[in-house]
């Protein structure tokens, strides 16, 4: 009689693809053990693929069910589930798709996967109370450049080589799924989640970089300098952050210390 650890080892081997691994441990009752084990094997695969489908619905729609399932099975072989929580199963999928599609002419699928993963993680992020532009009003003008902004935890900045935001929008429920001309080129996208739900905004490269630097705790002055955002667009960029409720705190300038 197999011990509990031995039995689970044999069961695991059977679910992974060796139908005879468990045969001697099963009361058949007229149905062979391989047939019974196949139910668990298909259930486990369905759970994995189902979670991946829910995370990457646009990618699935673009490549079709057959190729998506082929991708999912290859991905599972490389990145089996490591958690009882299905939510994180798709974490490494964009990287896997990037490796799989390199040199195929379908490299944009990896960028689409990255955008969908950003959406997935934005949807479950903590939401903090937003502050308005009046939170900057009391600051001395000479300290504005040394001030930082704390942004919503859900905010994700994505820069792509292909127009995957257009692809994403064309493949939302109710949209016609019309093909997008990939020659349209790069897009920069800010993904966030509010009370109203998921929000995706196309930004200029400089504004996206400006926001990304603020996320990395750069001061406003540093973010302006390093992003090379045109100074005339700065009011609009700040206005966007405040109006969208993406600013959660103003980080005052650190006082200088003298030794």
């Amino acid at each position, binding site marked *: 009689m197999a011990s*509990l650890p031995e039995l689970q080892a044999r069961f695991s081997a059977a*679910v992974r693809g060796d139908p005879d691994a468990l045969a001697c441990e099963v009361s058949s*009752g007229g149905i062979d053990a391989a047939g019974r084990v196949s139910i668990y094997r298909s259930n486990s695969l369905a759970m994995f693929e189902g979670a991946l489908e829910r995370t990457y619905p646009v990618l699935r729609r673009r490549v079709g069910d057959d190729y998506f399932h082929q991708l999912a099975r290859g991905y599972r072989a490389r990145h089996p589930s490591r958690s009882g929580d299905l939510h994180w199963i798709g974490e490494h999928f964009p990287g896997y798709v990037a490796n799989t599609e390199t040199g195929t002419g379908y490299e944009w699928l990896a960028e689409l996967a990255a955008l969908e993963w950003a959406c997935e993680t934005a949807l479950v992020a903590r939401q903090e109370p937003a502050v308005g532009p009046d939170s900057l009003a009391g600051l001395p003008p000479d300290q504005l450049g040394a001030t930082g902004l704390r942004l919503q935890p859900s905010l994700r900045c994505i820069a792509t080589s292909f127009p995957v935001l257009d692809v994403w929008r064309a493949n939302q429920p109710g949209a016609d799924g019309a093909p997008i001309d990939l020659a349209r080129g790069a897009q920069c996208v800010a993904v966030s989640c509010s009370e109203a739900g998921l929000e995706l905004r196309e930004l200029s490269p400089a504004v996206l970089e400006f926001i990304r630097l603020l996320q990395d705790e750069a001061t406003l002055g540093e973010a302006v300098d390093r992003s090379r955002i045109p100074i005339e667009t700065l009011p609009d960029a700040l206005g966007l952050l405040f109006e969208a409720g993406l600013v959660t705190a103003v980080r005052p300038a650190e006082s200088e210390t003298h030794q």
Partner: protein
Amino acid sequence: MVSSGKPKSSSPILADAGIGLRSAHHQALLREQPRVGWIEVHTENYFHDGGPHVRALERARETYPLSLHGVGLGLGSNDALDRTHLERVRRAVDRFAPALVSEHACWGSFEGEHFNDLLPLPYTDETVEHLSRRIAQVQDALGRQILVENLSCYLAFSSSRLTEWEFLAAVVERAGCGLLLDVNNAYVNACNVGLDPVAFINGLPRDAVQEIHLAGHTQRAIGEHVVLIDDHGSRVPEAVWNLYELAIGHFGPVPTLIEWDTNLPDLSVLLGEATRAQACLDVAHGLAA
């Protein structure tokens, strides 16, 4: 909006009918506020820090008593207990203050790979000891009793030396947990592995059963044989209703949940099934009065 923090207290779940709440029904439930005794959700779907699903559950629990039903701890796995997962369960319990917390008498991972399925255990003294020890660890971590659900099975192990009810009774005695009786699972097991469902119900420790699940199943052909698949994707079959009436005749009125996870219909269909369960409970309440 930011979470309003830990609810002050949990509303008790009475011996009424409830429904399993899935995200597709969040808005309909919050908008229509139907009369239903309580709701149950899968704990793992509310592990996150925020987002619309967490906010919807925070609103729903203001109206309905709540049960958290876990599917991912793998209580019977030989792998070490996943402390990260358990900590997330603990945070969800703290956040939502459910009246009931439950998991399954199953295992789910081996050498770190999770199969994300509820896998069956052999009914042996070794398993009783292992599962009981793990349940006790979870109860210690959560600071409360949990309920453990009987599993639907597609195979039986030749090494089993106990009946399923003897196994569950021994686990209850040793771990001090309660039981969640899934009547559909008992029916499925009767067809799939020859369980005597009446002996099963009569053999469970009467005071331990604190919740009942009802659900639908489907059929799958394997060669010349038919296996029932516990897919929670249809109405509760008549045979399961009959077994349910037998169960509450034996146990008395017990909080009863309509589970529906695949092929999700309109919320009204779940509520219709809950109304039927409530009618059975009302009869049992009358008999008990």
